[in-house]
């Protein structure tokens, strides 16, 4: 383990956290809010830890896969804990577990809240909550990679550990340039959304918060009814952008470099859009009776489907009261998740594609026991390693799911609430069904359950393995 390098990067995490807090700090000044002081205090604490760590001389700059994974996992812990400090210091969310739950929910772009009354929070706290989504969406370490002059190829290990999806591909030869391209696309899309929302006459503060939430596929609203009270125009804009942020960012890069044909061939995106289309139509037909017109039903179905499959978690209607068929579709979509290489969570469409194709291959092997068959995606054979890792991912994912479900069942809530609570946190969605539905929240759970869900959210965002690595004894051994 190269601790000097790990601490160096963690030092930068502290510094960047302080820099991120400038935004809520400025907001507090604009709205003259006293609890903005909490951000100032946290910034000072972060800098006090971060600056000495980044100043220290690094003896050994070599960085292997294990350091990459451990750094990413520790970075997210550091981010979450320091990010929760303003809530605790200002007294907005007094209990530390609650505050950390809220922050982890923010950074992991989950959007699950323990707050009964969101509107009671001050502006600076609200924008911080939403901003954590934006930071967590594309990843902090990817952000750091854009800005730090790190040389050598070792830093690919950081990106690999943080980026969602079964395999990470570089867009251009340099890690740093790749990270820059990703963030440029991310910022551009966010700005476009802000502009569109402003055209719809939404107040600037709301557009910022909601765009951050959409971009990171997070889902923290700033009103108690989430998005329901905004105009239909705004809802449609948000629907479109949620779906856009769930698309693999490589596709945008291909479009930007005018390789339209190659972009259109992307199998994952085609399936992703196909699933969305089917789900919208099915739910619209199923819930037709509940809305004034079919068009309205279609628009509402589209919003909810887009929100759930991209794991955003905004809501414009209480889907808890929808027919069971529609609710079941939503629960299934929760597991599907967005595309790899997007800001969304869940199992990811590409993994499901690989799994389905492997299953098909298995069937073929029954018919032709000696057949040799390669699993292909986008006309390219998928290496055996990736298939194996995908299978293992699913298994570990289910194990975590089942164990979490067992622990939180001690709280004695109903099965649907428990099941969807874990689904919603492990897949980074936000709202579930029952007590944790769009109108409810996670306040009712005990602190033990909340800690379990904090773990689930981090595991979901980091795709399980980097986080589990922290609990493996060999990670910390010298030999």
């Amino acid at each position, binding site marked *: 383990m190269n601790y000097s390098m790990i601490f160096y990067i963690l030092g930068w995490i502290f510094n960047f956290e302080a820099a991120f807090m400038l935004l809520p700090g400025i907001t507090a000044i604009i709205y003259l809010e006293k609890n903005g002081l909490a951000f100032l205090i946290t910034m000072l604490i972060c800098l006090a830890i971060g600056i000495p760590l980044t100043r220290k001389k690094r003896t050994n700059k070599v960085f292997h*896969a294990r350091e990459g994974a451990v750094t990413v996992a520790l970075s997210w812990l550091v981010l979450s804990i320091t990010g929760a400090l303003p809530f605790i210091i200002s007294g907005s969310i007094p209990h530390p577990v609650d505050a950390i739950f809220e922050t982890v929910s923010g950074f992991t772009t989950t959007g699950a809240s323990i707050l009964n009354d969101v509107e009671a929070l001050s502006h600076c706290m609200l924008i911080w909550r939403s901003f954590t989504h934006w930071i967590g969406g594309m990843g902090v370490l990817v952000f750091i990679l854009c800005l730090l002059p790190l*040389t*050598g*190829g*070792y*830093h*690919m*290990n950081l990106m690999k550990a943080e980026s969602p999806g079964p395999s990470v591909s*570089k867009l*251009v*030869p*340099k*890690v*740093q*340039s790749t990270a820059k391209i990703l963030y440029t696309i991310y910022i551009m899309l966010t700005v476009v959304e802000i502009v569109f929302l402003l055209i719809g006459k939404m107040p600037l503060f709301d557009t910022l918060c909601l765009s951050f939430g959409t971009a990171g596929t997070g889902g923290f609203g700033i009103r108690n009814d989430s998005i329901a009270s905004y105009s239909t125009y705004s809802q449609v804009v948000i629907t479109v952008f949620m779906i856009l942020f769930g698309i693999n960012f490589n596709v945008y890069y291909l479009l930007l470099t005018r390789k339209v044909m190659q972009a259109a061939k992307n199998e994952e995106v085609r399936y992703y859009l196909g699933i969305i289309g089917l789900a919208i139509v099915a739910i619209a037909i199923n819930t037709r009776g509940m809305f004034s017109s079919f068009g309205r039903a279609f628009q509402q179905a589209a919003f909810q489907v887009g929100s759930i499959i991209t794991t955003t978690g905004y809501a414009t209607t209480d889907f808890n009261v929808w027919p069971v068929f529609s609710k079941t579709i939503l629960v299934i979509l929760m597991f599907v998740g967005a595309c790899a290489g997007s800001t969304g969570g869940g199992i990811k469409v590409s993994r499901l594609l690989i799994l389905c194709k492997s299953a098909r291959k298995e069937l073929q092997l029954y018919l032709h026991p000696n057949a040799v068959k390669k699993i292909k995606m986008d006309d390219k054979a998928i*290496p055996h390693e990736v298939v194996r890792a995908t299978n293992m991912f699913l298994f570990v994912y289910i194990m975590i799911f089942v164990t979490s479900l067992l622990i939180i069942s001690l709280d004695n809530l109903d099965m649907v609430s428990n099941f969807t609570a874990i689904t919603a946190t492990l897949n980074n969605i936000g709202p579930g069904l029952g007590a944790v539905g769009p109108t409810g929240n996670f306040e009712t759970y005990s602190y033990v359950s909340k800690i379990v869900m904090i773990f689930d959210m981090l595991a979901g965002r980091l795709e399980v393995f980097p986080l589990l690595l922290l609990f493996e004894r060999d990670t910390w051994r010298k030999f």
Partner: protein
Amino acid sequence: MRIIIVGCGKVGRTLAEQLQEEDTDITLIDINADRINEIIDEVDAMGVVGNGASINTLMEAGIETADILIAVTVSDEMNLLCCLIAQKTGHCHTIARVRNPIYSKEIGFIKERLGVTMIINPELAAAQEISRLLRFPSAIKIDTFARGKVELLKFKVMPEFDLDGKSIQQITEHFRCDILFCAIEGKDFTTIPGGTNMIRNGDVVSILATPQNAAAFFKKIGLKTHQVKNTVIVGGGTISYYLAKALLAMKIKVKIIEKDKNRCEFLSEELAGATIINGDGTDRSLLLEEGLENAESFVTLTNMDEENIFLSLFAKTISNAKLVAKVNRLAYDDIIDSLDIGSVIYPKYITADYILQYVRATQNSIGSNVETLYHILDGKAEALEFKICDNSSIIGKTLSELNLKKNLLVGCLYRDGNVRIPRGHDTLEIGDRVVIVTTNKGLRDINDILEK
């Protein structure tokens, strides 16, 4: 600067490692996915799996926008084909490794008619380096600058030189030689020294000087400077062939020991003056029988690194010969250095150095050019030769006025056919060639020597 490297063997990998420290975008092509993945984990580059001579693969690697394509696969034909296709699809410079002697004779045609910008023959380059060492056996390593007018020589300080405990300033004053000490390597340190640094017995010292001045200096401290009279070469591969040719031209007696009978016959046909022995070069009695004890130099060029090192160690115990060993594996160079077996030749390093030189020179078509580049001190430092062109900001100032980077020496000044060691009051003028020794890697322009 966009560079495509086809073939991820040892040379491809070394090149990628060296180039990533500079401002370049590297794309690697190899047919073997595992090899690509292994390199991508350590080098900041993009990998493409596929056949480098296929247009689709090259397109995927971005041949249309590439500046240089380097083909270093195992096959000569493949390398040439890559370069040809690359030239038709893109507008890049192409570099091919071609090792078959048959093609080497046709380099002129390949360059002019086929348009391949650079052909590198690693065996020939290695042979040239070895022949230089045998011409001046006291040096561990010799690099030349300014077309041979300046040499960078590396030698080990022995007790009989009586240099122990003297500072560099004392030595230059005492011997009154126009030489520059540009590096001292001790047991656990390497420095680019100033006047006050001390030299100890056992240190390995690099000096920069003209061949005449170097010879004068070595004479004064009592170091042998004449070229060897005879040599024993173990292994009759391509390097030995080129080496023997060069040595025979220098009137050095050559004895080659080679296992393979047919190869021996070929060698004896081609190398008229050489003695070819058919036998196992690792056979102790054969070596003694062939007079290893009295040989003045002993070059081991078998395909096994272990054998080469082992034989050198043996020769060291029974003779006073100048030892040269070829080592292919790059990873353990520090260990091999600590064995103290004379000169070690890494053909892969030499190949990579040649290509790096070229890449650096292409990289700045305006301003000063890197004319030559050498890795010294196990790759910890570089010695570079620059030509000063008219738009440089350092022209006309004396060296003491310039705010030079730390760990950097302006080693040699070559002006109007004269070479001298620049001192503080010297100025740099247009058209001068200078040799810079530095640990700051990636200098590309003469202006880079200044602290920014």
